[in-house]
């Protein structure tokens, strides 16, 4: 079974802090994704990566950056956390073929105070 592991289940950070969310997958998937999930807004794509060192903006990239130095690891960075970035963050991975399903981690609940 594919395992996608997010380093923290819950995080509390202060406004202005730099925040790193880490995600590791163990199935050699080419694609990795970061979403945030908010009530009434569903899952919104922040960034995705289809290869090492490659990244593409999703629908809401503002205030975020990503890093993919190794195939199995995809990091989401909040350069200066703000209260409107309080959310559930979900990482996913998939094979690169077009019909490949996404495999999700269990999420990181981030609160910015």
């Amino acid at each position, binding site marked *: 079974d594919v395992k996608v592991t997010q380093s923290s289940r819950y995080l509390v950070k202060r406004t202005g802090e730099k925040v790193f969310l880490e995600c590791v997958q163990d199935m050699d998937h080419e694609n990795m994704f970061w979403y945030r999930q908010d009530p009434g807004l569903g899952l919104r794509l922040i960034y995705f990566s289809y290869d090492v060192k490659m990244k593409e903006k999703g629908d809401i990239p503002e205030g975020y950056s990503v890093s993919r130095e190794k195939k199995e690891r995809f990091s989401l960075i909040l350069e200066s956390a703000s209260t409107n970035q309080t959310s559930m963050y979900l990482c996913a991975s998939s094979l690169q073929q*077009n019909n490949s399903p996404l*495999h999700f981690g*269990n999420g990181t609940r981030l609160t910015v105070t």
Partner: protein
Amino acid sequence: SQKIEQNSEALNIQEGKTATLTCNYTNYSPAYLQWYRQDPGRGPVFLLLIRENEKEKRKERLKVTFDTTLKQSLFHITASQPADSATYLCALQGGYQKVTFGTGTKLQVIP
């Protein structure tokens, strides 16, 4: 702009009945559509994929239809059980590898 809509935020049905969830999309020409299940506090889990040239797909008590003319997919759970209670999400792949989700429908199966 591209949009995916799941018409009901919440759906309550009696145990044993068939639940039908709707996913409508605009400004996509998807080759396939996916359905996921999400339980509280967990990430979504893939259930089914249907291709544009498939009208219907079944897996145990689940059935998905895909009408590219209406730009709509229907997701059915027959003989529903309380354990089917969850949020169900549809998803489409648009541009290169980008996967976009609907807002989800929260299904509650009442014993």
